[in-house]
């Protein structure tokens, strides 16, 4: 491999693009595992999720408290910036609308942080109104660690790097703060239908 890698291409069978795929994407049937670091070993007894508002107001859930929240089945298409797409994936998760309900905030942005140090940023409006979940189940099973278990963000209308694995916290911010990939060339917003892969796209 050369020192400048073109990135992971996935292992799936390449197919012709179809109308149901965003531009530049190809369909896979498997579920490629991409990661910027080692899979963290997370003990559910220590797991927590915290949402912190721009004023410092904080909500915390341990695993039992999180799993007591009403779950939703979610079937969505996934689009990775490395060009693979996977259609009709089935998840179970808690809507961000549930987690944010009643929280007093005027923030416009969110910085999502993960066990292991990963982060990604989104406008807060992209996390509400039925567009984002904290997913803990995939395809009828517990979400496997290599895919972000015990729980990951799921924001399927953005490129999949925005769906942070091993989610631990969400900070609501007045000013946007670029995340792990957004700070090094990847697009701040990442709309697959606009093919917003890199800075300037």
């Amino acid at each position, binding site marked *: *491999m050369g*020192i*400048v*890698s*073109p*990135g*992971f291409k996935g292992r799936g069978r390449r197919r012709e693009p179809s109308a149901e795929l965003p531009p530049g994407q190809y369909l896979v049937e498997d579920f*490629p*595992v*991409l*990661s*910027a*670091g*080692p899979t963290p070993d997370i003990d559910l007894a220590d797991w927590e999720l915290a949402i912190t508002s721009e004023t410092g107001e904080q909500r915390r859930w341990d695993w039992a408290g999180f799993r007591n929240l009403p779950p939703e089945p979610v079937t969505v298409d996934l689009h990775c*910036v*490395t060009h693979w797409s996977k259609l009709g994936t089935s998840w179970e998760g808690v809507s961000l609308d549930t987690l944010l309900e009643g929280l007093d905030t005027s923030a416009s942005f969110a910085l999502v942080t993960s066990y*292991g*140090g990963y982060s990604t940023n989104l406008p807060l409006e992209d996390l509400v109104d039925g567009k984002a979940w904290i997913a803990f189940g995939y395809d009828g099973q517990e979400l496997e660690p290599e895919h972000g278990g015990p729980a990951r963000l799921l924001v399927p209308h953005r490129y999949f*790097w925005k769906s942070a694995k091993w989610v631990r916290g969400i900070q609501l911010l007045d000013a946007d703060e670029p995340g792990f*990939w957004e*700070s*090094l*060339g*990847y697009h701040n917003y990442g709309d697959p239908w606009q093919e917003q*892969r*890199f*800075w300037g796209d």
Partner: protein
Amino acid sequence: MSPPPSAAHRLWPHRTMADVRVFDHAPGVVARCPVCEQVLLRLVRGPGRAWLDLRGLTGLQLPVPDQT
């Protein structure tokens, strides 16, 4: 449990780049310290350009031939 970063980085002069843990099944390439897993460098390639972040490297010892 990993040692604190300061301890890990003190080990660094005794390690080689071959010891670095590289994660390249990702949107970019990420090289991490094999001891504390902190990011040493990141590399992203886009069409016609690349981005390089050397956040975790303060210096490298490079083998070079003697000057003649």
